[in-house]
């Protein structure tokens, strides 16, 4: 069985992102970049499936600028067998990325595509579902548990009221939620080995896909800030304020 793991290069989750001074976009100058945390969880799950003897090959793929090779090397160090960079100088929108992934999937024929439920930059939560639709296959989003019994895939999903379990047929797309697993760290020997693994670069222009932007970002601003309130000294003060000033409890 073959698993494809799409990953994304994003700002490290510890960085506090701010708009550029002209408010045209976010300021990404000199900020630390990393693999999107949800993608790391997807990769970890793929590696665990392979370690359990249920997969033969894991392919990491990203669609992005040349420097995304750095994140693909990380994926190779974490357990991917080979990697593909579909290189694009422009950052693409989710639908365009899904179309690129659909094209590569048609060439690679993975049994499972495991990917993050969302990237922590755009917070769109779209690409996996779009890819599933473009490929005409089943999906299980927000996975918190994946079990494989022969050809049967069971996925438990985090939904608003609790948990839902679906049975899906391969090929399938699974998108990962936070509690699916805790990703490992790459060991030094694996980081060294990753340098020798295969990493193919394909220009997006070679794929014959229309990736024209559909959405213009007109501005990026800070959210309106909340004014700091008052500090109270005691529980009695607090309850008095809530009852008589804010009038939110009786």
């Amino acid at each position: 069985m073959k698993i494809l793991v799409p990953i994304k290069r994003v700002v490290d989750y510890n960085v506090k992102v701010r708009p550029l001074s002209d408010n045209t976009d976010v300021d990404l100058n000199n900020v630390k970049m990393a693999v999107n945390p949800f993608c790391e969880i997807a990769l970890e799950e793929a590696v665990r499936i392979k370690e359990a003897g249920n997969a033969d090959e894991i392919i990491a793929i990203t669609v992005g600028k040349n420097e995304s090779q750095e994140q693909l090397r990380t994926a190779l160090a974490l357990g991917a067998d080979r990697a593909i960079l579909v290189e694009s100088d422009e950052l693409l929108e989710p639908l365009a990325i899904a179309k690129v992934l659909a094209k590569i999937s048609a060439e690679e024929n993975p049994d499972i595509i495991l990917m993050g439920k969302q990237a922590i930059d755009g917070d769109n939560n779209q690409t996996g579902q779009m890819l599933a639709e473009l490929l005409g296959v089943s999906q299980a989003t927000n996975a918190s548990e994946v079990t494989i019994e022969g050809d049967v895939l069971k996925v438990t999903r985090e939904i608003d009221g609790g948990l839902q379990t679906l049975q899906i047929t391969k090929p399938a797309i699974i998108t990962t939620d936070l509690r699916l697993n805790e990703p490992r760290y790459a060991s030094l020997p694996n980081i060294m080995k990753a340098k020798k693994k295969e990493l193919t670069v394909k220009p997006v222009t070679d794929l014959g896909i229309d990736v024209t932007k559909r959405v213009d970002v007109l501005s990026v601003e800070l959210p309106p800030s909340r004014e700091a309130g008052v500090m109270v000294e005691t529980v009695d003060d607090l309850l008095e304020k809530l009852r008589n000033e804010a009038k939110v409890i009786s």
Partner: protein
Amino acid sequence: MSILVIAEHDNSNLKAGTLNTLAAAQQLSGDVDLFISGNNHDGVINEAKTIDGLNQIISVDSEIYNNFLAEDIANIVASLESEYDYFLAPSSTFGKNFMPRVAAKIDTQMISDIIEILSEDTYKRPIYAGSCIATVKSNDSKKVITVRTTAFDPVQKNNSDVPVKTIDGLTELNLSSFVGEELAQSDRPELTSASIVISGGRGMQSGDNFHLLDSIADKLGAAVGASRAAVDAGFVPNDYQVGQTGKIVAPDLYIAVGISGAIQHLAGMKDSKVIVAINKDEDAPIFQVADYGLVADLFNALPEIDSKL
């Protein structure tokens, strides 16, 4: 222009977020139709018929739609492509699950999680866990949008008698099948619709200590939530989580207990009308957004609050 809102429901009742999504739809110019796909969902239709400002209800009743599987819902929603210019759904796990499939099917770049409508094609939405707000303009001819429900006041239910049009279901795709569901049972209000929410963070130290919040919640008629740190630590299940990766809430009163105030958490609750923070660390960032801050050990403060309510 015509607008289709896809209703979220459980075959018995309409979910509150549907009413907020309808409010967003009514800010666009055009007739608003409500699409209800389900199985034996007459109760939902009767409830929806009373909603103000609806043009009509489109209902499809079939076993295929009993469990709201993304593949089949996307299929039937996208089949209505020629009749509508806008497709809107709440940005809940329900809406997020199938709307991108609709968008891919009709070749449209979806706009997720809008918080404001500036014009027919221009919207505001949070990015980077709410650290920034982007204003985006869609150039697609059709729009597929999910709505952050806390950003729009709900439409009202009155004595309207909205006409209902019934359509046939499509052939089942049989791509995935429903195995089971474990829904949290609680007598308390749902997190996203509660008027008071009390949440615990890592400072709670254990899941057992959440009973301190439960007791106060029962007295206030509040829902209980948690920060991601508390969920990651295994104190409570994920459906308690308030934040960018959990639920977005905006109650009249939000009480954050033992929560430091990571941006991730603030993104999920900072639109609450009144915020109370209780934390023993006076430098915790949560105090910067709190209307009322109390520097105290929660293990002293919570029993005292409980006894004085």
